[in-house]
Each structure stands twice: as structure tokens, then as C-alpha cells.
């Protein structure tokens, strides 16, 4: 089986390095960063932290080098989905492309470029320490499910490979539940960290901010319910679980990392996505709209 990771940042690297442990899987990685790609090709892709792994794989910045693949796993930042899949679509003419990205709307973007798409959501997190080296902050599950007419059996094949490689993954008929659970989790916590500069644990131990988080969660749940989506777990429980010292108390949300580095955030696909789906289904989302506008303001301040 040949799998190409499209976007080998922190999350993409977790999949790439773990899948590369399997004898029967050939792993490729497509990424925009030349130093990262070079380091991977010379020294392998190293994970440390929650798990210590070195994966041997082929990495490239040139999509023309990619061979035909059975599966793609897209892990770019959401705003880069379109460009990344446009560049790599030729490798997936007969393959299936899964998204493990944050936010809403990724499957639709992929489906504009490739025929077979798999919906997905992943919870593990990390950060790029240096080219070729990723810190694995949090372990967690991945859920995959069909999008469009993709058969569940094919989804199971990819899920099985991920699980054997060390990334526990489930294949389910409707993956929107976990996806919305994660979107609601992220939209309700990431921007609060980004706006205040606080880690996840510190956000949660302030009663006023924790109330705001719940207000955002409630709006997200209402939008999910209006679409007939059944969440597979309560985002509130995940938020409290993550706030424990041994889980992710000290975790700086990726959006906070983005804001500190003055990189464009995923706000349009998180809170912006909830607002968009809310409007389509007649569900008011004033708090998500407020948070979206504030983070857009932060991004605008960098142009000053």
C-alpha cells in the first residue's frame, strides 16, 4: 500500500512517521518546506514526546515526483487545502484522499479536485521543533468515514493501516459526529487561547472564560443538531479532560502559536464555519461571530 501525506507539518508528521513503521506501507510526504523535506530524506522523520519514533520515508516539495498512491492523507492548514490538493491530485487518480484537518469544508474542497474522498478527524497534536523533528504533545484517536460514494470497506483499509502503525483509527459510517465534536472543541477553545495568550488549562480554570467557552460550545451544538448530526461525545467533557495537568494543561493552542508567529489562522474554517452553517440552518451564533470578528481583527493588525 502506498500512502502520501499531503502537508507534513506537526499532524502530518505524526501519521507519516508512524505509518512508516509498517513493512507493507510505503510512505511519501509532500510538503512546502525544503529544509524539512531535506532533513526527512537525510535523517528520517523523528517524533519525540508522547512517543519516540523515527520514520524512514520519501519526502518532496515537488508534486511531480509523487508516484500513484492508494491513499492520501491531507494534513495541511485548512487555508492551504485547495492549493495542496490541486498540486497533488494526479497522484490520486485511482486513490482515495482522506482529510485529517481542522475545521469545516475540507471534504468539499478535496472533492473539487479528486474523485474519492474520505472524511476524517484526528485528535493527536504536536509541534514542529526543527526540520525533520516534531514534538508529539498529545496522543489521541482518529475517526474516518466515507464522503460521497466512498465505500466503508476502503475507509477500513486505511484506518487499519493507521492503527497498526500506532495511530489508533476507527472507520465509521457517519464521521460527522466526531468531526463536529472536534470543530466545536477547537472553535470554543483555540481562539480564546489566541486572544488572551493563555494555555488551555489556564483558560479553563478562569470561571468567566470557562463560561464563555460553554457559550461557544452551546451554539456549535445547536448548529450540529439542526443538521441532524449526533455528536459522538460531549465537547464539554473533552475540554475539561484536556485541561488536566497530565493531559494538555500547558498546551498552547495551534491558533495561539499562529498568532504569536503572525501566521494566518484557521478561524474562517472554525468559528467562521460554525457561523456559516448556522446561517444556512437558521441558528443564531452571536458568540462565535464575535470571536471570529476579533481574530480577524488580530490578523488585520499585522497589516498596520
Amino acid at each position, binding site marked *: 500500500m502506498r500512502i502520501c501525506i499531503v502537508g507534513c507539518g506537526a499532524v502530518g508528521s505524526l501519521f507519516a512517521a508512524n505509518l512508516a513503521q509498517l513493512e507493507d506501507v510505503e510512505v511519501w510526504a509532500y510538503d512546502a518546506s525544503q529544509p524539512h523535506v531535506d532533513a526527512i530524506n537525510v535523517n528520517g522523520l523523528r517524533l519525540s514526546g508522547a512517543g519516540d519514533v523515527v520514520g524512514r520515508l520519501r519526502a518532496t516539495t515537488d508534486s511531480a515526483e509523487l508516484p500513484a498512491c492508494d491513499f492520501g492523507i491531507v494534513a495541511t492548514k485548512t487555508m492551504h487545502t485547495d492549493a495542496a490538493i490541486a498540486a497533488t491530485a494526479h497522484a490520486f487518480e485511482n486513490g482515495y484522499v482522506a482529510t485529517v484537518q481542522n475545521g469545516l469544508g475540507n471534504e468539499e474542497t478535496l472533492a473539487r479536485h479528486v474523485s474519492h474522498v474520505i472524511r476524517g478527524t484526528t485528535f493527536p497534536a504536536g509541534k514542529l521543533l526543527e526540520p525533520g523533528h516534531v514534538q508529539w504533545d498529545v496522543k489521541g484517536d482518529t475517526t474516518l468515514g466515507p464522503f460521497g460514494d466512498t465505500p466503508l470497506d476502503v475507509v477500513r483499509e486505511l484506518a487499519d493501516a493507521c492503527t497498526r502503525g500506532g495511530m489508533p483509527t476507527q472507520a465509521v459510517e457517519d464521521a460527522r459526529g466526531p468531526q463536529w465534536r472536534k470543530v466545536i472543541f477547537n472553535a470554543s477553545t483555540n481562539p480564546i487561547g489566541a486572544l488572551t*495568550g493563555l494555555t488551555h488549562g489556564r483558560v479553563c480554570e478562569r470561571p468567566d472564560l470557562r463560561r464563555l467557552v460553554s457559550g461557544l460550545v452551546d451554539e456549535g451544538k445547536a448548529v450540529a443538531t439542526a443538521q441532524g448530526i449526533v455528536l459522538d461525545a460531549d465537547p464539554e467533557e473533552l475540554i475539561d479532560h484536556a485541561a488536566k495537568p497530565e493531559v494538555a494543561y500547558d498546551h498552547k493552542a495551534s491558533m495561539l502559536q499562529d498568532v504569536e508567529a503572525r501566521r494566518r489562522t484557521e478561524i474562517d474554517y472554525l468559528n467562521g464555519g460554525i457561523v456559516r452553517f448556522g446561517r444556512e440552518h437558521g441558528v443564531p451564533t452571536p458568540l462565535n461571530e464575535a470571536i471570529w470578528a476579533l481574530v480577524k*481583527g488580530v490578523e488585520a493588525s499585522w497589516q498596520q
Partner: protein
Amino acid sequence: MTRVCVAGAGTIGSLFAAHLARVAEVSVLVRRAEHARALNEHGLRVSGRADFTVRLRASTDPGELDADLVIVACKGNDLEAVAERLTGQFREATVMTTQNGLGAEEIVASRGDWPLLSSVTFMSGTKHGDTHVEYILDTATWVGPYRATTVDDARTVAGLLVEAGLKAEAFDDLRPAQWSKLIFNATVNGVAALTGLPHDPHFAEPPLGDLVHALIDEGKSAAPACADDPWEMNVLATQRGHAHRPSMLEDVEAGRPTEVELINGSLVREARQRGVPVPLQEALYALVKGKEASYS
């Protein structure tokens, strides 16, 4: 000649003191001895909208100063400490507060039985050291009676400010004006502190302008009355061409405590007391408090 003591010589205090020194006998009560020494030696210079230097008396000891009018011009966060220092002093004076937010009058009232005026000021500037203040926005100061004073007393003080070259107006009841400014400040300062944006046209256009509008609507729903429409104040301020950096933004960037409690906290507490839901203002308040907490 009227004797005026300005307590607190930050930007606003310095602007009051320097202008008034042209028409009154002005002293300044400051916290740092070197600040007092510098003012006594070099006087106080104003640049920007006006350009002049005045001599005035400065001291760290309220016992050395006397006045008919005391203008309390410190930042809200220093008000308790300054009011404490006024206790038992200036027995013949009328005292006027100028702080942002609500509740400054109560704090001063609890420290002595002076007749009290309250005021809100919209002028702004920047301090360039202990003896130089730049006068940036020459917007008005509004004065009203608070305790054992009448609108005539407010008119006298407003008249003195106008004579000194500042803009001022007297009101029978200052509360509607205070609410206008409270809603304006809570919204604009809070949004600026969280986004890092100065008060520029983003505040009047989608998407941020929509949020600003919604925050102001919430504030108005909690206000017993408003003098000027804070949304119009916001739009006008963003059209001046010069983007003002609200003090809360400067505080956050410098890692200093902000006036969030006096401004956003006052608004939210008043709304809660009246049973008016203000979820967006609550969110703004919690976020700025969170930002302050991130310093440590």
C-alpha cells in the same frame, strides 16, 4: 485668582494643569519626588494642539498644597490610593473626579465630605517625560454636579476650563454622558486591546464593525440613558484620519494592568444589577481579564 490642585499628573492631569496654569494658581500633587522636582524646576510644556510652557507648584505632600478646586486626574487603578492621600486635606475645596468608567465619585466621597463634581473627559494626549505632554485630541470635558453641588458650580468649572483653552460643557445630570463614554470605552478599548488594532476604520466596517455595533447595542440596552450615541462617537472617531491608540491597548502591549475592571467590569455589573443580558460585553470583559492574567 482661583487656586486649583490637580491630583495625578499623567496625560490627562498634565493637560488640565498646564492649561489651567494660564488662568489660575495651579499646583500638582504627584507620587514621585523626582517628578515634583522636575516640574518645579522646568515647569510643564504642552505641544501638539497648543504650544506653551507654564510654571506651577508640584509636591508629593498634599499638606503643602491648598486649593479651591481639586481635580482628581489619576488613572482609575490609582484612585483608591490617591483618594486616601486626600483624606483630611483641602477642607475648603470642591473636588472633581475625571476617571473612566463608573464609581469614581463613590470612592472619593467615602474619603471626605467635600462638595463633589463629576466629569468625563474626551481629550487625549501622550506624555513625553515628566515635564512634557503632547495634546492630541482637543475634545471636550463634560462636568456635572454630584454631591452638595449644583449645575452652576459645574458651569463655573466648565467656564474656567474654557478660559484656559480647553473645551468643556456643564450638564444638569452627567449620568447619560458617563454612560455614553462608558459604552464607547468598554467597546473600543476592549476590542483594541484584544486585536492589537488602534481605533481605526476597521471599527466601523464589517466584520469587526458589526461586532462593535452589537457590543454598543448591548451597552445601550443596559444604560438608563445615553447622551450621545456611542456608535456615532465611534464612527466619527475612526474618520479623523489619525488612529488613536486607546490606553487599554497601550497597557496590554506594555504588560501593565488595564482599567478593565472600572470600564468593562462596571458596565457588566450594572447590566447584571438591572437584569439585562449582555453576553458579548461579558465575553469582552472575560477576554481582557484573561489577557491580563497571561502576563504572569
